[in-house]
């Protein structure tokens, strides 16, 4: 299948590990990603603009570009995913807003008819490609690696799209089939605070300490994420969390596509494993060297 790829701003550079691993895994599984030409920022949290039509039009420009390509959008960043998905839903639910947005898009010689589907790579891997197919392609058995799958908020909420909102299970299934062991991780959909790390740092540090603690207490060797913001908060701020709360967490944070890439036998540079800040630990290192 061919998909319209919407990397989003953080995947361009700061979270290149996600971008590289999504592309590598899709390639390995015979799926084609074609980057949307000249996409723009989705606008992230919509309240940023007090003007609703602006927020919707900014994000709808990408939907219109993908519609021209005639493909579903793949958006790996949870925030992009939820914003694009929500824009699509609101436009299809409220005809007046749809008309307003199209009036604005016309200024850029674009028109959107509401047909683009917004998808997350996890959805595509689990439902289009299929976990059975993926299992057959596993080259490195994860060998009982203890995994805490962290879904975060925005790929499962607010809309129930492809997994359960309270207890999503697709990553658990996927990695179990790759030979991993899923640890008990009740905070799998608990919020990391997102941008609060910038605006209310104390609160966000505590949220992330709780997440790291929950994973380590249950013996995880790695936390696997689906979102650049969760990843940034858990990884880049792990030092600061340790200093603030007098803890000594040192748990690697990987994108789910990076861990899947390891299982599929893809070269570690190709999936951006060299972009991490935290030592991968013996278990993962020995897997990669196999």
């Amino acid at each position: 299948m061919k998909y319209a790829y919407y990397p989003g701003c953080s995947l361009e550079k700061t979270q290149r590990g996600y971008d590289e691993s999504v592309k590598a895994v899709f390639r390995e599984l015979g799926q084609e990603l074609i980057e949307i030409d000249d996409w723009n920022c989705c606008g992230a949290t919509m309240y940023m603009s007090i003007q609703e039509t602006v927020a919707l039009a900014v994000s709808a420009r990408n939907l219109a570009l993908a519609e021209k390509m005639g493909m579903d959008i793949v958006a790996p960043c949870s925030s992009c995913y939820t914003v694009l998905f929500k824009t699509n839903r609101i436009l299809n639910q409220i005809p007046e807003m749809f008309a307003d947005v199209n009036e604005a898009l016309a200024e850029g010689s674009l028109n959107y008819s509401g047909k683009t589907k917004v998808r997350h790579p996890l959805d595509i891997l689990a439902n289009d490609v299929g976990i059975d197919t993926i299992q057959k392609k596993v080259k490195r058995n994860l060998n009982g690696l203890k995994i805490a799958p962290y879904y975060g908020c925005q790929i499962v909420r607010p809309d129930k799209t492809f997994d359960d909102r309270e207890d999503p299970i697709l990553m658990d299934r996927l990695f179990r089939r790759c030979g991993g062991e899923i640890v008990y991780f009740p905070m799998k959909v608990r919020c990391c605070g997102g941008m609060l790390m910038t605006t209310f740092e104390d609160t966000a540090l505590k949220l992330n300490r709780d997440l790291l603690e929950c994973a380590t207490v249950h013996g995880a060797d790695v936390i696997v994420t689906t979102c650049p913001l969760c990843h940034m908060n858990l990884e880049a701020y792990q030092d600061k969390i340790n200093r603030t709360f007098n803890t000594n967490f040192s748990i690697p944070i990987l994108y789910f596509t990076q861990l899947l890439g390891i299982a599929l036998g893809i070269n570690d540079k190709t999936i951006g494993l060299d972009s991490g800040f935290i030592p991968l630990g013996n278990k993962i290192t020995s897997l990669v060297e196999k």
Partner: protein
Amino acid sequence: MSGSLRIPFFMSRTEAELRQIFLEQVKQIPAGEKIKRCIQCGTCTGSCPVSYAMDISPRELIALFRAGEMETIMNSRTIWICASCYACTTRCPVGIKITDIIYALKRTAIEKKYLSEAPQVQTLAKLFVENLMAYGRLHEGTLIRKYYTKTGITKLFGFIPLAKKMWQTKRLAPFPKKIKGHEALSRIIKKAQEIDMRHVPESLEYSPEYVGYKAVGDMKLEQRKGN
């Protein structure tokens, strides 16, 4: 609480204006009218990962709206600390879109300039929009640099070790890049702004009817489909 004494059956002009702006915002939310159905069970508060850091809980927001205490809500830090994780929205037993309601409250506060509780959120929002307008894409480095220059330059120095690590792992783009369709995007935004202005009532009329849930019901939103 605001501490002011409220007189039954009387609503101040400020309160009425705030309610009107807020209700206009609620109108934009699919299934927004469900705010009427709140049973004050507190599931939202219990589900919220940051309610412990709020001065007013999510449940109390709705109670205060119902009681005609919009100003108290506007002056709270609650609306700014919501990280929009949608846990409350998912669990609300009567289907209230609480996260969207909080967005509506934020927009109301921005419009009427109640920003004292968390000026840094407004700063970040403004810089984010500026960044988006200037390049079409977000350049995180510029955003963070400008944000800490405005809110506390000393904190910016704390980012040096992180920036160094990002540089070493090739995760730092030194300069922002404009998208090709930048001018077209600017035209789209300008037009959308004009359209938004059409929806803003020219003068806000005082009406004692903007009280309680009745005002929500009068908006005839029930025909709108929503989940």
